[in-house]
């Protein structure tokens, strides 16, 4: 199985690659549209700001590739946010693979932003991505923007408001948390996406 990690300059590229190695999968790091289009699985990691990440994807001419991609695609953290139509972070147009807009999370009394730490996953509907992951299982989040719960949401989490924690629509999937840093729960989600569970 050829797994390609999209090299869009995300700071967590290395961590995701190591997590895949712990599953026995040696992923290829690539910014080449042809390599990405031929992969069996594509992962779009991301740490940083949405506008900078979209600039980088445009500079690599990867926006058409990722819009057209018919392979299973998993966005992680910012990578998941880029799958939506747009983001309020820098008010930028994104890849449009999922409908909706990513918005800034709202601070409230006792609710600090960024949302940082371990929070429980709440399954919203059945999905192969959640196989073996119990309701309430803790995952590690670090983000200040989030997508609202929608038809694409398979698991939500709550920090003040509820938001989309895991999404899936056909071949397009995403995790707002960091599976590469979420212990056994994260490892399970990656294995489910790769079909190596």
């Amino acid at each position, binding site marked *: 199985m050829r797994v390609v990690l999209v090299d869009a300059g995300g*700071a967590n590229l290395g961590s995701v690659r190591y997590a895949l190695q712990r599953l026995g999968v040696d992923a290829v790091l690539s910014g080449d549209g042809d390599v990405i289009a031929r992969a069996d699985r594509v992962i779009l990691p991301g740490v940083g700001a949405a506008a900078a990440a979209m600039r980088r994807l445009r500079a690599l001419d990867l926006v058409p590739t990722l819009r057209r991609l018919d392979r299973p695609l998993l966005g992680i953290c910012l990578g998941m946010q880029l799958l939506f139509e747009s983001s309020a972070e820098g008010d930028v147009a994104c890849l449009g693979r999922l409908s909706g807009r990513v918005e800034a999370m709202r601070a409230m009394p006792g609710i600090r932003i960024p949302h940082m730490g371990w929070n429980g996953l709440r399954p919203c509907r059945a999905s192969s991505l959640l196989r073996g992951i119990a309701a309430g299982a803790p995952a590690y989040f670090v983000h200040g923007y989030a997508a609202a719960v929608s038809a694409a949401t398979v698991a939500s989490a709550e920090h003040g408001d509820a938001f989309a924690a895991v999404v899936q629509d056909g071949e397009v999937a995403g995790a707002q948390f960091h599976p590469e840093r979420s212990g056994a729960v994260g490892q399970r989600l990656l294995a489910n996406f790769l079909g190596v569970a």
Partner: protein
Amino acid sequence: MLSRRIIPCLDVKDGQVVKGVRFRDHVVVGAIEDLARRYRDEGADELVFYDITASPEGRRVDRGWVERVARIIDIPFCVAGGIGSVEQARTVLHAGADKVSINSPALRRPELIGELADAFGRQCVVIGIDSLRDDDGQWRVRRDTGSTATTQALPLTTLAWVEEVQRRGAGEIVLNCMGSDGVRAGYDIAQLQAVRAVCAVPLVASGGAGTVAHFVAAFADADVDATLAASVFHDGSIRIGELKRELRANGIEVRDVC
């Protein structure tokens, strides 16, 4: 619901984990990877590696260990010490660290905080603050605390600096209460409460943990998001699993140890 975090801090000197009392007299505790794995297995929610040799001496440090830790650890970790530029932060983050913590370089050039937030997002940017109460009763910031010879007292009050770093893009603040560090008499609850009142981003308490009750007080009385400790974990006097059971018994939400 978001859990409160328990964070072992591993002071790294010359490639090994060390521990000192009141920031001095360091003794070797063990190998970096061994301790990282041990704390992960015990249920630590996050790790901080504090490179205590790097900043005051201004020398380049071999951070090959960051990549080695990233390969074996599946919980988040932060690297502190000796990161004074966007490029240095990029090196550490690309090696696999999830966050970088900046202390003295941010005091020298506060613009650095915004530059880091723009480059990596504010969620990556942790500001460490070394704070001590002066004779007039005010908490003020100390710089270059890696050794007593370099430590400088600044006129800047801790509360003013906490507000400034948030305006500039800090995503989290670690408050090292120097007066209580290493002596196990409890976190500085009064100071943490004062900082909490002006801190809208996650706040991590550091310095003074000696008993389980000290952790309970930091969460229950100062409403911190996380507690950091070193020696009580290194010497085994507090086990993380047991600590979490006690915290839960006190109504504090923590992550299950798997």
